[in-house]
């Protein structure tokens, strides 16, 4: 097969392509037009682009084909859409870019965008955010729902987009660059707690898949695999990918948040009491 066919989408989705082009386009345009002091450094730009391109690659290249017909590749796809890609995007701190575009929006339009803000704030309640984060993994891996999602083209796209959007919301909540001492961003202690909390159900689910004797996800057997591979091996690898990397990412996240908390320790003595009064 020629190299180009590995880079072209297996199941072309114009809406997906357009979304990614808009995101990168708006990001690039803002970089060119924003004042020097706000502009993210090259490291952050690379991190952002890498995060976005990773997500694009698993949705709109040959990788998507293997994700549809191999359970363990599918788990790898969700690992990137729900964890790695959003983590990179959140860590790159695109806040100045978003602020830049927000200031360009007309006040009348901003008024109509308000409901989006309300939905966002509800979704970012720590309890709801972590429930959604774990809930979506369990929802799409529920055997009968997983079966339907892999059979129906629409459901499949809804599944992948919901994982990506939820990943972005959750990891943005965790790696929100604003300090909780001076803004109403989530406190570092709570962020660490959330990271530990969401790791446990993912480990349980992963271990359950790994140690299941029977076929849990028979849709790959029913629909044929991308290449002949023993179903047990496929399921074992998929279970391991559900179990170990997400747990490691939670720990990495905890370390990053801890480091930030230690850096800020004692930095905002006055405003801390102010923020405390508001909370």
């Amino acid at each position, binding site marked *: 097969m020629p190299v180009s066919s590995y880079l072209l989408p297996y199941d072309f989705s114009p809406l997906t392509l357009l979304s990614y082009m808009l995101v990168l386009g708006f990001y690039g345009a803002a970089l060119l037009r924003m004042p020097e002091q706000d502009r993210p450094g090259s490291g952050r730009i690379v991190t952002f682009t890498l995060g976005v391109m990773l997500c694009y690659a698993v949705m709109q290249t040959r990788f998507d084909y293997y994700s549809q017909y191999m359970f363990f590749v599918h788990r790898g796809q969700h690992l990137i859409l729900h964890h790695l890609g959003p983590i990179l995007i959140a860590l790159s701190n695109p806040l100045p870019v978003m602020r830049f575009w927000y200031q360009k929006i007309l006040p009348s339009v901003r008024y109509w965008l308000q409901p989006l803000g309300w939905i966002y704030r*509800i979704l970012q309640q720590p309890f709801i955010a972590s429930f959604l984060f774990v809930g979506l993994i369990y929802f799409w891996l529920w055997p009968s729902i997983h079966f*339907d999602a*892999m059979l*129906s083209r629409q459901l499949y796209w809804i599944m992948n987009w919901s994982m990506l959007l939820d990943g972005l919301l959750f990891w943005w909540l965790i790696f929100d660059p604003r300090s909780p001492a001076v803004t109403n961003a989530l406190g570092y202690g709570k962020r660490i707690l959330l990271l530990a909390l969401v790791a446990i159900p993912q480990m349980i689910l992963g271990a359950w898949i790994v140690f299941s004797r029977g076929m849990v996800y028979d849709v790959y*057997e*029913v629909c044929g695999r991308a290449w002949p*591979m023993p179903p047990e091996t496929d399921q074992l690898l998929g279970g391991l990918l559900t179990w170990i990397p997400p747990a490691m990412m939670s720990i990495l996240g905890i370390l990053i948040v801890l480091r930030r908390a230690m850096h800020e320790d004692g930095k905002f003595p006055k405003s801390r009491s102010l923020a405390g009064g508001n909370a």
Partner: protein
Amino acid sequence: MIRIRLLWLIFLALMFTGCTGNDESWHGKDISGLMPELEFRLEGTDGNTVTPADSRGTIRLLYFGFTSCPDVCPTTLTDLRRSVGQLPEEYRDDVTTLFVSVDPRRDTPERLASYVDFFGDRVVGMTAEEPALRELTKRYRTTFGYDKPDSSGNYNVSHSSAVYVFDRSGNARLLLRPGLSPEQISEDLAQLARESG
């Protein structure tokens, strides 16, 4: 906090109504609305082009396989033959089995013809060049792949193990997973034949 709890309740209620909405009257898996209607253009065993129009008005059973298949394909086709044989007599001619070979390199029209003849009169053998087969399998969200050939040139082919059932109008209705008995398949087919007969 009360607002959060309320949202919780609404969410749970929605989840549970979603779970109980299933119609449990089929042995196979109901795929109405999940898959597109029957459409293909393949080469038949006599060299002619076969389309769904050739079997219009009958219930179509679509199955992907290959004639060198050691166990799954013969078992499935035998089960299908038996389940059609168990139908009430008036419906037996209303079911067409469409066997699509995903191994066009080995499955010549002659080989395919003698293979499908073995499994009954209303079995249609078809195949095509690989790109056309890829298109068709993609439409039904399935795939196939080839193993490396052994020293004597034999190779294994991975393919779907399920049978797609389309009603008389060509709408995707059921997916028969492996493990169903011919009796169960027969009941499903009879129910389908009655409803649109």
